[in-house]
């Protein structure tokens, strides 16, 4: 790891100010991605601004069906929140399968979304839940937020403060893990609204990161059952091929995970 300066602000305002004053500053949340990258000398921030001690970034509030999760809320806290479980158990289940207990007690939803790893789990949930990413300066629809591999709509120095969404009528996430990393090799989050609208978001498989599958959404909107996707074809040409799985296999997995998610929802 290269030398860096560590800061511990206690408000969002202070954090933004610290980043503004740093040569090449980075926010630090759980550090599960950032610290590992720094140890490998692939990142060399001049300053680290720690977001974990800012009270306003933490916690989960559920108001009727409207949900707000603070950006610095850990995966463990999402997984074990009873209020959240009552309205959207799918996101609790998703969080409970991220990494291992150590990662879940350190890693945060804000960090995961800001990082936008193409195999991360939360981005699929954000897209399928039609969530809003709230920052210190604006609100960004999930559809506009994830812009490419490890790319987001965040400006320099912009902090995610929370994510909000309305809990759907039904939702579930099914993930087929990469045997080595256990990140998603194909992860599918399905959500169905009371008005029958369906969203199917896929992570781990797209060559440009998380995406929605309109074909399956349409099929499921007409017939909310696992069999509905039977005849839908998943185009492999936009999918990833790597050491662990070909695009064709990922296409197959997306269908299987979608069916299973619908069955589980």
């Amino acid at each position, binding site marked *: 790891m290269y030398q860096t300066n560590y800061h511990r602000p206690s408000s969002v305002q202070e954090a933004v100010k610290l980043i503004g004053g740093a040569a090449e500053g980075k926010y630090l949340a759980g550090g599960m991605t950032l610290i590992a990258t720094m140890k*490998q000398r692939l990142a060399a921030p001049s300053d680290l601004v720690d977001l974990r001690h800012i009270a306003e970034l933490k916690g989960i509030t559920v108001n009727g069906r409207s949900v707000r999760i603070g950006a610095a809320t850990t995966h463990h806290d999402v997984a074990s929140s009873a209020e959240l479980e009552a309205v959207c158990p799918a996101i609790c289940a998703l969080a409970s399968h991220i990494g291992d207990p150590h990662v879940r007690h350190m890693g945060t939803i804000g960090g995961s979304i800001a990082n936008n790893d193409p195999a991360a789990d939360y981005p699929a949930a954000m897209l399928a839940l039609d969530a809003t990413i709230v920052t210190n300066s604006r609100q960004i629809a999930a559809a506009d937020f994830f812009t490419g591999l490890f790319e987001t709509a965040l400006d320099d120095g912009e902090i995610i403060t929370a994510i909000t969404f309305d809990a759907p009528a039904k939702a579930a996430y099914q993930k087929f893990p990469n*045997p*080595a990393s256990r990140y998603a090799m194909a992860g599918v989050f399905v959500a169905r609204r009371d008005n029958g609208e369906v969203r199917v978001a896929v992570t781990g498989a797209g060559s440009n990161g998380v995406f929605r599958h309109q074909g399956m959404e349409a099929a499921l909107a007409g017939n909310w059952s696992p069999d509905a996707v039977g005849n839908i074809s998943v185009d492999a040409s936009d999918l990833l091929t790597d050491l662990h799985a070909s695009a064709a*296999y990922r296409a197959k997995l997306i269908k299987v995970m979608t069916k299973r998610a619908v069955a589980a929802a």
Partner: protein
Amino acid sequence: MGVEGIGARVARKEDKRFLTGKGRYTDDMSVPGMKYAVFVRSPHAHAKIKSIDATAAKAMPGVIDVLDGKQLTADGIGNLICGWMIHSKDGSPMRMGAWRPLADETVRYVGDAVAVVVADSVNEARDAAEAVIVDYDPLPVVTDPVKALADGQPQLHPEAPNNMIFDWELGDAAATDAAIAAAAHVTEVKILNNRLSPNAMEPRAALGIYDSGDDHYTCYTTSQNPHLARLVMSAFYNVAPENKLRVIAPDVGGGFGSKIYIYPEEIVCLWASKRTGVPVKWTCDRTEAFLTDAHGRDHVSTVKMAFDSANKITALKVDTIANLGAYMSLFSSCVPTYLYATLLSGQYDIPAIHANVRTVYTNTAPVDAYRGAGRPEATYLLERTMETAARELGLSPAELRRINFIRSFPHQTPVIMNYDAGDYEASLNAAMAAADWDGFAARKEEAERRGMKRGIGMSCYIEACGLAPSSAVGSLGAGVGLWESAEVRVNAVGTIEVMTGSHSHGQGHETTFAQLVADRFGVPIDSVNIVHGDTDKVQMGMGTYGSRSGAVGMSAVAKALDKVEAKAKKIAAHLMEADESDIVIENGELKVAGTDKSVPWFQMALAAYTAHNLPAGMEPGLKEGAFYDPSNFTFPAGCYICEVEVDPDTGQTEIIQFVAADDFGNIINPMIVEGQVHGGLAQGIGQALLEGVHYDPENGQLLTASYMDYAMPRADDLPSFKVSTSNTPCPNNPLGVKGCGEAGAIGSPPALINAITDAIGNNALTMPATPEKVWAAAHAAN
């Protein structure tokens, strides 16, 4: 046996230390003035070094020096060697290319060391290592061993045209070919054995300390065999003569073979310590470990197995290409030859066998012994072939094996080995009963109703442990003898120290070796200390690998104990005015049989040291040493059965049950044996299901350089194992033990692949059986 003697389930003495963080590993060692080394490594798989410019690096904060291969060469440090000479079938010696500890002209794999930075801190050394400017002229790359043999491929070493190191054979080609020509049935298979990264929990490390006052070197290192390291560094690498070099391998956190070899880093740390005048420590990081720890396996083979009309095997013909990587590591040549082809008879009576093995240089990390070393390759090949043959012949896997089992001992195979004892049918029956083989059909039907494909597979393995009779291995090309030494020191108060040349890095010697002593003298194991891993404390030894510590290391201890026992009895007889032949040792006392006369063990020991009243002419003290050279290999064997369920939609395999029925000879500590089997099974299952090293064939970059891409087995990948032993004592060593350290890794891969291929109805599947491969194979079958 007593509660702590041979056969007792004694908890491991060393675990308190390990579990409470009190283990002392090489990286824990610190000495005054110590500095840190970081290596500059090649980012190219193959390149000429045009120049190295360390001017900027040397000027950086905390940097003491930057040293390169030219300086190392100028100081007369020798090439790394392979210590086992193999001759090609045309009689020519193996073609060993030069391996410089720091490459001075050419780099041949990604990670090849070219320079070392010594600095006040690891971070400063890393910063400076990044500032060393190496000008490379990249060369074309070859990573595939089959391709590397072809004409027109990149050449790694001028000594080895077409990258071939040797073209070796074993067995009778003519008899084998004739039997195949006359066969009623011939099964032909192509077998790939995947390349593995060893992944010891503790990464390699070395601390070199040069003392200019005495012109003496001390090397702390993560070694499975510190004496061998000292011998090789003295005799071949010209680091220092043996009396000027102390090698200490303290607690070592796992080796699996990868810590047998002497690597560039320990040599460079010693040399750099002299050059810079400060002690120099290097600790490998995980990425470096993936790049530079010697890998295992990587064979491509074709097999023909011939049967007569009664389904008896009449011949086996094997052609293997073994990838040895960029350089010949210390034992690399014997692994795909004498540790492999000699086991190709398996548990079967095969009249004719012929094996041809070609070894090849490629632009990849060196390949050497990895848990099992050669025997897993032989077992996988043979047991996959047996399974295939059973399917082709329409026989049950058990039936084909029963027809072909060796049933009388000793048995001379056509490939050197003389099996001394065994009962293969007993293991097969035990495993089948434990797995409820007969109930499988019903379980398969039940799984089918849930949409799952269930399969069952077996593997009957044999391996050779207890390396090895020195004259035998010498005649086959080994550069060293493979005996072991021990010394037993009884202190004046009766406590005991055992010095052993075996090295413990997870095997539990501090417990099992003490159990031998407890068993012999009836003293508590707490009064016995096992001393190992330091060339100043233990005179000589050959270390731990090839499951040799029990069969060879403990046998040396037993021999030394014989001598101590004889002298102790003489002293006791003298003290009690009895006949020495009437003395028995029980519960810590020396007794005159049939009387109530006795002397406590400690009192006898005290008498040996006060020497006030010893038999006439007896030397004072009680300390005896022994060297033990085995008269044969030992032959552990067993039967493993695996049952799986495959999800046809995803290709995901779940192991439903895994049964291991082994014959390890006599057992010193059943709990430790079970632990060794569990660990071995986990590694074998890892190989079969998950693990695989991949290089980019275009540029030789390592694609699996972290746990993000290299899949290690985890607890939830594994079932709860059902292990048992039914033992035939080994007739060739005093304890009747065979060895159990590698069996799990040897026997398990074919059982698992046989089970998956049974489930999906397609025999064409390679390791690791990743979900995608299984899914594709399952669908190809339908």
